[in-house]
């Protein structure tokens, strides 16, 4: 099967006051039709920038290299309009903070079907009906009334549902969700994740899920891509990675989660994520790594397959179980 989305050696740099920031540094992954891939990492690891590159949403001045192909069409180096055209029909994205992506002065229903009206020439009356349908589908109660309300009249969970309805309007093949439940409570998070899972089943939609919540990943994702300091450090089927991780960072993250009631002390990763303007040489994780050896300071470990799935560590054989 051909992947829907293929990212190869993606690099994104920003020129800042503090010098050049390498936000994404050689990232590769695929998303196949109908699957859920989770992109995981600490804040600043480059998750959002990666997906902004895919969606053509990077600010002007960002330097992008490498390759991003969507169903065979190369997006890097093409005018943003090419990406935008695709984004309308095939790709959609939802964000952590739905309020900032909804326009406060327009009615919610109108925003949900704006693209249908503008791009597919749907008439307003039909669009309103379609908005009610979509709102029903994402579980917004009393959609006939709420279709005419404004974003500030919606709760956080309802706004996120409205965003999903907007994303679904064009029936995308790939939905990119950047921390879609981070701002929500667990009961509402459960509702949203269940909704996304059901859409995947009914429509065969693929989902690229950015999150830092390892529990959400375990529940939702077929495959996981772990990022650290702008690079992929480990990737593979979720269950295999969680049970047999091959990278010290993955191991540390999993041990940091207070999941087991019987654990008295957590085993945190020491230190803190690096400043992207001055990344450590060699393996960027070495100042925090309890497996680090001399070689790690100078030699950057490539992503290579050890025991079934790829990881980027000189000592991956000795990590995990």
């Amino acid at each position, binding site marked *: 099967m051909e992947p829907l989305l293929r990212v190869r050696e993606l690099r994104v740099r920003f020129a800042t006051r503090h010098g050049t920031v390498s936000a994404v540094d050689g990232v590769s992954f695929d998303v196949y039709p109908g699957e859920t891939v989770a992109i995981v990492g*600490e804040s600043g690891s480059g998750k959002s920038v990666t997906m902004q590159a895919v969606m053509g949403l990077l600010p002007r001045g960002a330097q992008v290299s490498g390759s991003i192909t969507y169903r065979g069409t190369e997006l890097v180096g093409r005018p943003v309009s090419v990406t935008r055209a695709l984004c309308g029909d095939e790709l959609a994205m939802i964000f952590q903070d739905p309020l900032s992506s909804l326009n406060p002065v327009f009615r919610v229903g109108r925003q949900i079907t704006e693209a249908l009206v503008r791009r597919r020439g749907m008439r307003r009356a039909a669009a309103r009906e379609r908005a009610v349908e979509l709102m029903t589908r994402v579980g917004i109660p009393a959609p006939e009334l709420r279709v005419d309300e404004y974003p500030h009249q919606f709760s956080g*969970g309802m706004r996120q549902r409205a965003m999903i309805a907007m994303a679904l309007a064009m029936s995308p093949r790939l939905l990119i969700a950047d921390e879609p439940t981070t701002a929500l409570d667990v*009961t509402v998070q459960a509702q949203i994740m269940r909704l996304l899972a059901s859409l995947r089943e009914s429509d065969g939609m693929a989902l690229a899920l950015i999150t830092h919540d390892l529990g959400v990943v375990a529940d939702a994702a077929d495959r996981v891509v772990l990022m650290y300091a702008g690079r992929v450090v480990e990737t593979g089927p979720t269950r295999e990675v969680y049970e047999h991780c091959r990278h010290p960072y993955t191991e540390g993250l999993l041990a940091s*989660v207070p*999941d087991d*009631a019987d654990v008295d002390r957590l085993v945190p990763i020491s230190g803190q994520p690096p400043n992207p303007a001055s990344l450590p040489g060699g393996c960027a994780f070495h100042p925090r790594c309890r497996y680090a050896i001399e070689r790690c300071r100078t030699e950057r470990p490539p992503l290579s397959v050890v025991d079934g799935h790829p990881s980027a560590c000189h000592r991956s054989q000795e990590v995990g179980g």
Partner: protein
Amino acid sequence: MNPMPAPSDESGTAVAGPPLLSVRDLVTSFPIRSTLLRREIGRIEAVAGVSFDLPAGQTLGIVGESGSGKSTLARTVVGLARARAGSVTFDGTDLTAAAPAEVRRRRRDIQMIFQDPYASLNPGRTVRQLVTEAWQIHPDVVPRDRWPAELAELLARVGLDPGHADRYPHQFSGGQRQRIGIARAIALRPRLVICDEPVSALDVSIQAQVLNLLRDLQRDLGLTYLFISHDLSVVRHVADRVAVLYLGRIVEEAPTAEIFAAPTHPYTQALLSAVPRLRPWRETAPEPIVLAGDIPSPANPPSGCRFRTRCPRAEDVCAIEPPALTIRGTHPAACHFAG
């Protein structure tokens, strides 16, 4: 400082001593004002009759959804918000009724750690200034000539480099800033520390560092914690007892292991079942209970049981009769059908 380890019985669970903090029927409300004339047209009861006891040396976890009143409860206990009714008794003194001088003296023993380490530290002050200002206000805690030595010890205690005392908050990472907040909170040697979402803004690996630090400080300094979080896994890890808040009221309260193993209130059951597990394939969890809708506005709470609009077990009586928080089964729950 004297260590005060919690006594244990044979089963290893902590036994409650006399309460250090005792809260009774606490109500904290905010005015709702008309947009035009700013007249008071009603009140939001953010905390709507809360009672609990917290024994010395223990940790009470408070969980609940956004808007359930967790922060308002915390702010009322430390005196940042005014109680409209009820009492907050700390070590035998009712802080809502005592003379101002007495309250001021007592408040020194109660400190708070905030969620947002960025917003809670004045950006124009160095770590040294941030910590020593507390000693300036309460000069009897640390004599001035001991400040440099005490500061160095305190910073080392929370895992910061004492050599960085003259740096500003923006020169530290999020996790380090939370350590500054912790240093400030314990500088006055408090007995009770209110932690309002102390790790929610931090990355998982840093979260674990700060949780371990809080645990070590409790053991070494005999601290008592009121620990607020919306993250149930975090609360399960730190708390001896857990109280579940819904729309300003406690709906269930029990020892941590008990509430996680056998929740009796429908809301607690739904909340716990919604927590994603780290390795779901290793266990056979029951089908999650997915609640309909969102938490209603506290400006206009449902009649009877406040949870009834989302409750899968609601019956007619629930709309009329508010269920009291009384022992049903083995521990208190506020549901007509719990236990």
